[in-house]
């Protein structure tokens, strides 16, 4: 871990976007997430790290209620977005997901054109009144997704025909087309090569200016490169949460230290 670059950046804002308190997740009888308390700040990249099966992806999926689609999954405790309980019975998960966008591990563009991939979200949420509005949203999203220059000449080509890295940036552009406030990323670079990974990481850093980004990653170098806050999960517990620099240079918990030095995981 000697090559680890630790980015020392000033955290821009300290406003809490999402706060979880005593969050528990059960899959049937398995207690997958135990008593997690975490505050995710606005305009910050927060990284979740930890060994496989530690619950970091499960917790991420709680933040936009994607776990609702799994029948046996049960979530307890409080998760608040801007002070509102997202598990309140009055909350419609569809509305929540428009606010909390998600990018998945494997690039999953719809088998439609690049244009339709981006336009789908705005269309179903009624964000564009005219074709011109929609065109503008598509262009803006693709520019923010740092893929506009590569696809502007072939907007009507299928999105599935792009390379893996391009597909993932397309998915990021699709996620930000609905103007979310939080962007959840579940190992967005694990299926990409180093060059595409670098592009996506650069993009994540740019996105920080507008959104609160939560990223799950297996790569500690990546967490160190892109995040300002890091949370270390182990066996369903949130072991340590703090400034990225502090977690990697001066971990408080022996388990964190063991993990980042490669002794467990």
């Amino acid at each position: 871990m000697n090559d680890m670059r630790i980015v020392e950046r000033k955290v821009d804002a300290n406003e809490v976007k999402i706060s979880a308190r005593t969050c528990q997740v059960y899959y049937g009888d398995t207690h997958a997430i135990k008593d997690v308390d975490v505050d995710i700040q606005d305009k910050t990249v927060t990284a979740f790290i930890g060994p496989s099966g530690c619950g970091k992806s499960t917790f991420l999926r709680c933040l936009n209620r994607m776990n609702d689609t799994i029948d046996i999954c049960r979530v307890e405790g409080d998760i608040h977005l801007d002070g509102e309980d997202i598990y309140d019975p009055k909350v419609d998960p569809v509305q929540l997901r428009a606010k909390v966008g998600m990018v998945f591990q494997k690039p999953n563009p719809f088998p439609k054109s690049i244009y339709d991939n981006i336009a789908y979200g705005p269309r179903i949420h009624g964000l564009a009144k005219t074709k011109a509005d929609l065109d503008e949203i598509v262009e803006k999203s693709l520019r923010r997704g740092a893929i506009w220059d590569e696809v502007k000449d072939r907007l009507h080509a299928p999105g599935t025909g792009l390379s893996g890295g391009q597909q993932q940036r397309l998915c990021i552009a699709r996620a930000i087309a609905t103007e979310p406030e939080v962007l959840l990323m579940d190992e967005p670079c694990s299926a990409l090569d180093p060059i595409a990974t670098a592009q996506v990481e650069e993009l994540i850093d740019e996105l920080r200016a507008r959104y609160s980004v939560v990223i799950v990653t297996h790569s500690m170098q990546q967490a160190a490169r892109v995040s300002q806050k890091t949370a270390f999960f182990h066996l369903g517990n949130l072991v340590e949460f703090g400034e990225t620099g502090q977690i990697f240079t001066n971990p408080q918990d022996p388990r964190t230290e063991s993990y980042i030095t490669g002794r467990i995981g």
Partner: protein
Amino acid sequence: MTDATANPVQPDGRKHGSLLQQDARIKRRNASEARFKFYGILAVATGLFFLVALLWAIISNGTGAFSQTYLTVQVELLESKLDKKGNRDIADIKKVSTFGYTPLIQDALLKEVQDRGIETEFAKKKDMKALISASAAAQVRDHVIANPDLIGQTVEFRVLASSRVDGYLKDRVSRESVARDKNISPAHLDLTDALVEAGVIKKIFNLDFILGSDASDTRPEAAGMGVSMLGSLFMMLVVLGLSLPIGVAASIYLEEFAPQNRWTDLIEVNISNLAAVPSIVFGILGLAVFIQFAHLPQSAPLVGGLVLTLMTLPTIIIATRASLKAVPPSIRDAALGVGASKMQSVFHHVLPLAAPGILTGTIIGLAQALGETAPLLLIGMVGFIASNYPEGVLDGFVAPNSAMPAQIYEWAKRADPAFYERAWGGIIILLVFLITMNIIAIILRRRFERRW
């Protein structure tokens, strides 16, 4: 097996022998692999052999039904016989039955024989009966009723030859076989030969077999598939109209929305079981529920369609669920991730991707229903039922009719070998339909298939 035994150490102390020499174990393994391949080829070849034999049998037996022997005769439509009052009143003309026309046709044929100077022992018009189909008189009568002005004139008609003459031209009837036949004598066959040479008797393409209706036991030469084809068509409309929406809706609900619990498990198991229920069980269910309880008309394509819908539903549901399952979950996640509702994700993304599979399943289900006979026997869609085309669309659904496979079954069990040929011909038509449907399924699948 023997693979587990360790390699023996070679005499010179090396662990493995030369690569250029196969050891006994490798030889055995290769031999068993070669044997297995041979069994596979043998199995495929056997299957192909039976397929070819079947096709050959169908085509060689069935092509005869697509040609038919006709007589061309100049019939003198005598006013004294057909319109005694001479006032061309259609009601009076209709009073003359086919018995009034039969002698005229026989007379015309006898005249043809005598005019051409064909030597024969037959001098009476009664003797011509053996050559002319019993339905010829009805054909002439229908034509006269449609055109009463023709009475008094001599009109050329092309009428059906009797099935014995037809069989003689198709090598089904020989002089030996007619020796004890009271319908026709060897001398008639000599006359037939002469008339063929004179061009009076001709074998031509049999459009009536494809478009016509079934005929009674004594007139195999007039029997056709057309009306039962319509019966099948109306049944398929019922099956498609009911089983596709019901099947797809049920599958989408079970696959995408239903919670996983004991009830849905029970439903799933039962759908799979229903697919294996013998079709005759559905037939008796249809008889009990639709005819005896609901008092729907007997022998109607509507009822047949309902029964076949019950039979096809499990097939469509299973195929649809399989193709919904085959859509990668990442597409659902992607749709939900941008804030689509469950229904939007299903209808905008999952269903279009599953469409080729659903269409294929539906068409295969329909093809299965098209070829189904047993349930139709129980609801009375069989036998010499429909001799007329349905009058309009509604009539097509509720008027008694048969269906293609039931018609074939009916012909196959009749005594006259001329019907046997009809049955094979019917199978050719049925197979053409099935192959067409399968080709449509393949084309649709190719067209709608999308890769991701």
